[in-house]
């Protein structure tokens, strides 16, 4: 298997990890192509978040291989290095810098040199300024640019976080439950936003909201007990008897 060089954007093979005897991931294999938008569903404890932890370097796998862009071994890198490689991540709970303004949040996320001295002597250039303004309008936060992130509504925080991911200019975006706690209108708008984003990069979305996934209309992977249960279109997956048994319920 190692002999053949995988040419996918993200390639997970036989990944296992356990916490105190509990197998969070059990020989999971999973592939994402460049430019793909993929949805992941699965019951609680299926290993969705753990999978993201592995990809972003927060958790090290006990076994298996994880490659990015064909030959970059992600198991040997830490979070910061993986983020710099172009993998962005949105958490389940919206995590933005509450004591910074919306603008500063985006400025911090901007894909620029991130060393100590580079940031110490950083000056906002015209180019960076227009990039931030562009993102602000994409995530519909232009009017709130000077407000503290703490004062945003829940949905606006979710968008700000997506905006920060955009500013990061990642090639692969991992999004964990982006519409949890959103109104229906916000949910619909988020689906449009994600599809727009997926035009220029690969996106992996973890979500429980089946309606939202139907809105996305993409390939779906169902995880259960740490490995892949079924993969295919939403109709194919939701009719799979194993998926119904494990997740959707009869």
């Amino acid at each position, binding site marked *: 298997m190692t002999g053949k060089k995988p040419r996918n954007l993200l390639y997970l093979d036989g990944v296992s990890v356990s*916490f*105190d005897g*509990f197998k*969070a991931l059990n020989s999971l294999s999973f592939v994402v192509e460049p430019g793909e938008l993929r949805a992941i569903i699965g019951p609680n404890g299926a290993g969705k*978040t*753990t999978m993201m*932890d592995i990809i972003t370097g927060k958790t090290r796998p006990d076994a298996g291989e994880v490659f990015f862009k064909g030959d970059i071994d992600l198991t040997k890198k830490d979070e910061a290095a993986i983020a710099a490689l172009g993998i962005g991540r949105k958490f389940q709970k919206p995590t933005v810098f509450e004591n910074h303004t919306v603008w500063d949040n985006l400025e911090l996320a901007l894909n620029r040199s991130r060393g100590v001295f580079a940031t110490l002597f950083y000056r906002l250039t015209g180019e960076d300024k227009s990039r931030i303004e562009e993102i602000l309008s994409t995530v519909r936060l232009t009017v709130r640019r000077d407000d503290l992130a703490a004062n945003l509504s829940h949905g606006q925080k979710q968008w700000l976080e997506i905006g920060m991911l955009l500013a990061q200019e990642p090639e692969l975006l991992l999004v964990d439950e982006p519409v949890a706690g959103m109104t229906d209108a916000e949910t619909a708008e988020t689906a449009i936003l994600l599809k727009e984003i997926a035009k220029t990069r690969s996106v992996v979305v973890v979500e429980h909201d089946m309606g939202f996934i139907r809105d996305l209309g993409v390939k779906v992977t169902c995880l259960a007990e740490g490995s892949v249960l079924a993969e295919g279109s939403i109709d194919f997956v939701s009719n799979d008897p194993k998926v119904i048994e494990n997740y959707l319920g009869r």
Partner: protein
Amino acid sequence: MYRIIQTALAALFLFVAMAPGLRAEEALRDLVNALGEAKLSEMDEHIATLAKTGKPEVVAILEALGEGELYASKADGQVFLTKESGSNLTLTDPISGDSAGEAPKAALSKIRVNNSVRRAVRTALGSLTLLSPDRNQRLRAARSVLQSPDADALGAIENALAAEKDAAVRAVLEQARATMLLLSDRPVDEKREAVRLLEENGGREALPILSGALGSADESLKPDIEAALASIEQAQAFWNAGQNIWYGLSLGSVLLLAAIGLAITFGVMGIINMAHGEMVMLGAYTTFLVQDVVRTSFPHLFDWSLAIALPLAFLVTGAVGLAMERGVIRFLYGRPLETLLATWGISLILQQTVRTIFGPTNREVGNPSWMSGAFELGGLAITWNRLWIIVFALAVFAALLFLLKKTPMGLQMRAVTQNRRMASSMGIRTPLVDALTFALGSGIAGIAGVALSQIDNVSPNLGQGYIIDSFMVVVFGGVGNLWGTLVGAFSLGILNKFLEPYAGAVLGKILVLVLIILFIQKRPRGLFALKGRAVEA
């Protein structure tokens, strides 16, 4: 009739026995009187002669000489044992022990002694008391002979050994004989036997004897002595290691006691209680107060004072803990750094309160009789208070483990610390459980204070000495794990004591701190860390 015959026989026997006795008594009296005329330089010789008689009366005479209570009459040179009574001296006949009336001081002259005479007296007494009817006195004498062996006393020792029945005294005598043998000019075979004997039961004391003998020993004996030296050294190293482990266990039990309350408040609840050391201190002061009352009002209960102090200390510090939790800490949940600062403030207040009430100096807390003294176990010297503290620390640990794992209270505590919201929605009154858990941790610190008052100075600063160590133990062992605290305390204790001989006490402590800091690098969550997603919450 029968009675009369018996009495007559006894009288006859006595007369027969006393006839040579009377002669010997005269000879002894001459010897004693000679002391009065002797010059200082001749005294040693006279004392040795007296001791050689082996008479029991000589003991009292030599003791009086050593004390400066032996006087010679200026008129006829008779020597008396004396006691001062005003300007007169009460005289006692040295041989018969009968009273000999009183005499003015001016009529007598004191027999002068100097240090060399006193030494001679001691040595002489040593070999004399070897024959004393009192077993303990014989043992003491045998030990003193062993400490300053003299080849000339070999005969006395052998005599004593022949008469000795008590095993403990015999053992010491045997050793003393072997030691003296090596110094004497006895045949090589006997010496070889002595070397073997020393090797067998001689501890640290045998080392200088053997190596001293090595220089002057016969060529054929040298290999034996060298082998014996090597084997003793090996045994010593073994016992030293054992002693270090014992000291380490002892230190570990102290650390465990200090840290175990913290394992509850910090380990289980996640509260940084910088006033934890002051809880220990309050427990120690409770012990002091209890002993003070017991000493003045119920002296016969003194041995029970610790048992009385234990529940009181638990209640006092538990109450202080409860007040702290309700008054301050509960407003700071979820803000560990603020908790740290506020509890530090409380620790300053508690310290100053105690200082104001009891003064800044150390207060005396006594050991009950069952905690005093020491015994020997092989080559180990074990003090009772240290032993009891180890037992006590383990008992507290076991009780706490039981409380947490097997009682409804413990179940609720664990439920609240693991998932507060879930516990509260299941009807557990979380604020109450928080308060009680914190009070429990504080109460245990108080109990620890009772034990630590037995081995440490009871002063307002008592707690400060423990706070960093106990945090180190909990962090090293792994937060939230009682077993981790146990293992952490004992391994840090033992590590400390093994480093001490090489690095010295202070440097050893610094090394341990540095090692812990490095260890936390490798395992940031301690020895027995919880793993998994929940940890990162």
